C-alpha cells in the first residue's frame, strides 16, 4: 500500500517533469534567456537532484501545499477544492443511474438469455462500448437540446455546488452521456456473472430445498454477483475519471477534468501535477475501499 503510494507519486512527478522545457520555461515563456531560466530554476529548486525534489514535494503535499498556479493566480489546493465536488456530483449521479439500470437489466439478460430482449440490450451495451464518449455527448446535445429543445445544451453554470445542483435540467444530458458507457460495463458484467452463478451447485441446492425462483435469484445469485461488481467498481476508477474528462470538456462542466485539459493546453505545471496526484491517490484508496467492501460482502474472504 505504502509502496504503491510511493510509486504513484514518483511516476506522477517524473511524468510531469518530462514536459518540454521544464516548469520554468513553461512559466517565463519562449523568449526568456538561458540565464533567466537558470536563475528561476535555482530559486525554485528545480536544479536539485530528483530525489531531493521528490522528498520536498511529498513533504509539501503532506502539509496540504500543492503549489501555486501562476497562470490562474490561484493556489492548486483552492482550485481542486472548488472543482472536485462538482466532479464528484457528476460521477456519483452517473454511477447511480448506471448501476440502477445496469444491474437489473444485466440480471434480466442472464435469466432471459438468447431472447429478443437479451439481443436488443446486448446491442445497446456494445454501442456503449464502441461509441466515443465525446461523440455520444455531442449527439445528445444535437438531438435533445437543438433538434428537440428539451434540455439546455450546456452544463450547470455557477461557482458553488449549490448552484450546480439548483439546475437539475442542465445536469440531465451530462449525466446521461456519462452513465451510458458505465451502463454498458455493469450490465455486460452482471449478465456474465449471473450466467456463471446460475449453474453453480449452491443454486441447485437452493432449488432442491424448494426455494422459489424469486428467492434463488435475489437471495442467492444477486448477492453473489454483487460481490464481483464491487471489485469491478474499484478497478474501473481510472475509466470513471476518463469518462468525466470528456463529458466535462464537451458540456463545459466546471470540474476537475476540464481544469486538467485547460492546464494541459497552458502547460500549467503545478495544476497538472496536483490534479494527477490527487486522482491517483484517490484511486489507490478507492481500490483499498473496494477490497474492504469485498471482505464485508463475502464472508469467505478474510484479510489477515
Amino acid at each position, binding site marked *: 500500500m505504502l509502496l504503491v503510494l510511493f510509486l504513484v507519486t514518483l511516476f506522477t512527478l517524473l511524468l510531469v517533469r518530462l514536459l518540454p522545457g521544464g516548469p520554468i520555461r513553461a512559466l517565463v515563456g519562449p523568449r526568456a534567456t538561458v540565464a533567466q531560466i537558470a536563475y528561476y530554476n535555482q530559486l525554485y529548486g528545480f536544479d536539485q537532484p530528483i530525489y531531493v525534489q521528490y522528498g520536498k514535494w511529498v513533504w509539501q503535499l503532506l502539509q496540504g501545499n500543492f503549489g501555486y498556479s501562476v497562470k490562474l493566480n490561484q493556489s492548486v489546493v483552492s482550485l481542486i477544492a472548488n472543482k472536485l465536488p462538482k466532479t464528484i456530483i457528476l460521477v456519483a449521479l452517473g454511477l447511480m443511474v448506471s448501476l440502477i439500470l445496469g444491474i437489473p437489466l444485466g440480471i434480466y439478460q442472464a435469466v432471459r438469455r438468447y431472447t429478443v430482449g437479451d439481443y436488443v440490450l446486448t446491442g445497446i451495451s456494445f454501442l456503449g462500448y464502441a461509441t466515443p464518449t465525446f461523440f455520444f455527448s455531442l449527439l445528445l446535445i444535437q438531438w435533445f437540446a437543438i433538434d428537440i429543445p428539451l434540455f439546455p445544451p450546456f452544463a450547470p453554470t455557477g461557482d458553488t455546488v449549490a448552484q450546480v445542483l439548483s439546475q437539475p435540467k442542465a445536469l440531465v444530458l451530462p449525466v446521461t452521456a456519462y452513465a451510458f458507457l458505465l451502463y454498458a460495463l455493469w450490465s455486460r458484467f452482471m449478465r456474465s456473472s449471473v450466467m456463471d452463478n446460475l449453474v453453480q451447485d449452491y443454486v441447485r441446492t437452493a432449488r432442491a430445498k424448494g426455494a422459489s425462483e424469486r428467492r434463488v435469484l435475489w437471495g442467492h445469485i444477486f448477492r453473489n454477483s454483487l460481490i464481483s461488481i464491487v471489485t469491478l467498481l474499484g478497478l474501473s476508477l481510472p475509466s470513471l475519471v476518463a469518462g468525466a474528462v470528456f463529458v466535462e470538456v464537451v458540456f463545459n462542466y466546471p470540474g476537475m477534468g476540464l481544469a486538467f485539459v485547460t492546464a494541459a493546453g497552458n502547460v500549467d505545471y503545478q495544476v497538472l501535477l496536483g490534479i494527477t496526484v490527487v486522482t*491517483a491517490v484517490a484511486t489507490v484508496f478507492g481500490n483499498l475501499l473496494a477490497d474492504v467492501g469485498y471482505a464485508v460482502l463475502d464472508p469467505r474472504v478474510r484479510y489477515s
Partner: protein
Amino acid sequence: MSMITPPPDPATVEVIQEAAQVDPGTLTAVEAAELGLTPAAKPRSMLRRGWEVFAENRLALTSVVLVVLIAGFCYIGPLIYHTNQVNTNLANYLCRPSAAHPLGCNDVGYDQLGRLMVGGQTSLEVGLAAAIVAVLIGTLYGALSGFIGGSVDSFMMRVVDAGLSLPYIMVIIILSVIFHPSTITMIFIIAVFYWLGVARLVRGETLTLRTREYVQAVKVLGGNRSRAITRHIVPNAIGTIIVQATFAVADSILILSGLGFLGYGIQAPATDWGSMLSNGVTYLQSADYWWLIYPPGIAIILTCIAFNFIGDALRDAFETRLQRR
C-alpha cells in the same frame, strides 16, 4: 458441433500394435472395425477446437467479414478512388455530396470519402500496433513476474498497481503534450498504459499454470526459466492474451479518437477517424453537415463493435469449460 474424439487409450493402442505384429498387412480396415478397433483419430488441437466454437458464432463471423471489408475499404479503396489528401482546396469548401464527391468535402476541401479511407488506415494501424506492443510487453512482464514469484513478483505487481492507479487519460494527455503526436508516438503512448492490465491478467494465469505438472516437468528435465515461459506458459495462456489483444484494438481506436477530439491526436494533413469526427462536430450545431459527422462516427462504432464481438467470441472459444464435449 461434432463430438470431439478422445485420444486413444493406451490399452487400445497396444492391441492395435499386437495385431499388427502378429499378422502384418492382413488386418484390413473392415476387420479392424469388426474387432472394435477404430483407427485413432488425431486429437484436435486447442486452436482447432477453439476455431470450431468460434465458427459457430455467426455474429463473430460477420464481424470478421466486416473487419476485412473495412480494411479492404481503407487499403484497396484509395487504389481505385484517387483523391488528394495532402493539398487543401478551398474551392471545395464544405461541398455537398455529389457525383464527384460522394460524401462531400470538409472545411478545407478534402474529399470526405477519400479521407475516410486514409483516416481509417491510421486508426486501424494505431489500433493494431498499439494492441500488439501492449500485449507483447504485458505478456512477458506478467509471465516473468508470475513465474519468478516471491518478493520479485510482489514488487513487479506493485509497479503495475501503481501504474493502473494513475488516471490513464491524464497520463496520455501529458504524454501527448510531451511528444509530438505522430502515428508512431501515438502507438507507444497508448501502449504505455495498456500493457499494465495485460500484465496483471497474464500474471494471474501464470500463477495457476506454473504449478501444473508439465511446467514442473520442464524444471525436472533441466529446462531453464525462459524455456518454461516461452514454450509452456505463454502458449497455454494464449487464449487470454489473444482475447485481450482483440479488445485492445477497439480500445486503442477509441482512445486515439478521444485524443483527436482534445486536439492531441494525429496532426493534419494526416488524419484518423477520431480527428475527422472532432473536426466535423464543430459543424454539428450550425447546419446540416451530416457527411462530416456520421461517416467517421459510424466507421469508429462499427469497427469497435466488430472487434468487441470478435473478442467475446474468442473468449467463449478459448474458455474450455464452456465448450460442449
